[in-house]
C-alpha cells in the first residue's frame, strides 16, 4: 500500500509538483499500477537468474575510434538559453 508521504517523496525527487487534489488522484492511480505489477510476484522465479536483456560479448563492443561530433550549433539549437557556446542554466546553490 503506497502512502501519501511516499507519493510526496517521489514527486519531490522527480521535481513534479502536485496540489492536494492531484496527490489523492495520483495515489489511487499508483495503487492500481502497483497492484497490476504485484501480480508478477505470483510467478515462481525460484532459482531463475535475473535477465534484463540478452548479454553482449565484450568482443562485440564498439571499437575506440573517434567519429565527428555534432556541430555545436545543432547541439545548442533546442536549448532555451545559451551563452558563449554553453547551455545556460539557473544558478546552482550547493
Amino acid at each position, binding site marked *: 500500500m503506497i502512502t501519501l508521504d511516499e507519493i510526496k517523496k517521489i514527486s519531490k525527487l522527480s521535481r513534479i509538483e502536485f496540489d492536494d487534489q492531484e496527490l489523492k488522484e495520483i495515489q489511487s492511480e499508483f495503487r492500481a499500477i502497483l497492484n497490476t505489477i504485484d501480480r508478477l510476484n505470483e510467478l515462481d522465479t525460484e532459482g531463475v537468474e535475473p535477465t534484463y*536483456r540478452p548479454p553482449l560479448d*565484450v568482443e562485440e563492443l564498439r571499437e575506440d575510434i573517434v*567519429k565527428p561530433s*555534432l556541430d555545436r550549433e545543432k547541439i545548442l539549437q533546442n536549448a532555451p538559453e545559451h551563452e558563449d557556446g554553453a547551455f*545556460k*542554466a539557473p544558478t*546552482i546553490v550547493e
Partner: protein
Amino acid sequence: MIYLAVIGLEVHTELKTNTKIFCSCKNEFNLEPNINCCPVCVGMPGALPALNKKAVEYAIKAGLALNCEINTLTRWERKNYFYPDLPKAYQVSQAEAPVCLGGYMEIETQNGPKKIRINHIHLEEDAGKLIHSEYGGSLVDYNRGGVPLIEIVTEPDLSSADETLVFLENLRALLKYIGVSDCRMEQGSLRCDVNVSLRKEGEPLGIRTEMKNLASFKAVHRAITYEINRQTEILNSGGEIIQETRRWDDQKGRSYSMRAKEDAQDYRYFPETDLPPVKISSEFVRQVKETLPLLPKERAQKYVEEYNLPQYDAQILTSEITIADFFDECVALFDNPKMISNWIMTDVMRKIKEHQTEDIVLPINAKNFTKMLKLHQDNVINQPAAKTLFEHMWHQDSKTDPEQLIQKLNLVQISDEGELENILKEIIQNNPAAADDVRGGNKKAIAFFVGQVMKATKGKANPKTVNELIQKLL
C-alpha cells in the same frame, strides 16, 4: 580518550581512451565548450549508447593491477539525480555487477607492509562541467560528459591521513604505470571522496561521514586531519556523530555539512535497459593481462637482481613510470646501471623536485644524458664539469651533442701532464712554505695545491693527474 580512525576512499579516475564511454565523441580535456558532443552525450531523446570496448579493457587492466577478480558478466544501472551537469538526469553507472570485485594494494607503513582491500571497481560516465557566468546563471559544458571513469572503492582499511596519502600516491603511480589514466588532479582526471569514522579499540565501527570536493592530495590530508579532530571533539564532549556528507573548503581549512543535498541522496538505482550486460570471457581477461607492464614492485626486483642496485634505489627509480622508463632507456645505451642510477637518484631527482609539477617532464633525452655520463667515465670531463654540463643540458640546451657542448663550454678536462706540471711548478714557486709542509707530510697542504691547480685551470684539471704530479714534484 584515544580513538582509532577508520578511513575508506572512493577514487574516481578518467580513463584515457580516444572516445567517450557510450559514443564516438573525442575524449579530450580543455577545449571550447560543447564541441565534443553528440545526441548521446547530451542526452537527447531517443539516442542510444554504445559501450566502448577500450573502457572495459582499461577497467579490467586496473582490476588486474589491483589484484581484483574480474566479473564474468557485468551490468549497468541508472543512478538518478537532478543536476545540470547531468543531461539525462541519471548517470549510467554500475551497482549490482561491477567489472571488478575484491582486490587489494599493498603499501609500506611504519609498521611494515599493509594490505588495503579494494571492495570493487566499477565503470561509469563522467558528468559535464559547470562554469559561473559573469551575467548570472551557470554555463554548462558537456565535453566532459560521457568521459569514461572508473570508481575504485576501498574497504575502510586506512587508519591515518598519512597512510591515506601513501595509498593515494601509490595508486596514482600504479594507474599511470599501466597507462589507463593521466591521473591529473588539477584537471580533475583524478578525484577522491573520503569516508571517516572513529572507534575505540576493540569496538565496532562508528558512524561515518563522507567528505567531498577534495581537489588535491594535500586537501585530502588536511580534510582527514580536520575530520578526525572534529569527530574526536564531538565524542569527547559526549555528542553523537551524524551520518552526513560534508564539503571541504580548502581555503578556509574546514568542512561544512551539505544538508541541502540530503533529500536527494535517494538515487533510485534501476537497470539501464539501453545497454546489454557484457560477458567477459577468461580469454579476454588473459589478453588484457598480457598488455600489463611490469609493475613497480616487480620492476624494482628486476633492478636489484639484474643490475645489483640497492633495494632503496630500485624502489625510487621505479616509483614513477617516467623515471623507470628513462632509466631503462639509459641502460640500453650505456652499460653502467650503477652510474646511471646514482645520477638519476641525485641530480635528476633534485631537478624534478625543483620544478614540481603533477607530471614529471624530463627536458633531457637518454641519448645525450648517457653520452655525458660516458664522457665523464672516460675522464674527458671531471666531476664538476659533468655537473656544469648537466645543468646546461637541463636548463638550456638538451639537443646539442654533449661532445660539442663541452668544447663550446670549454669543459674538457686537462690531463696533459706537461701542461699541468708547468702550472704546478709555478704554484710551488709562489708558495714555498706550503711546499715545505707537503714535504713534511702535511695532507692539508696537498689539498691546497690541488685547489690552486683547479683554480688556475677553472676546475678542468684531472684531479688524479694533479695528485700524481704533487707526489712527483714534492
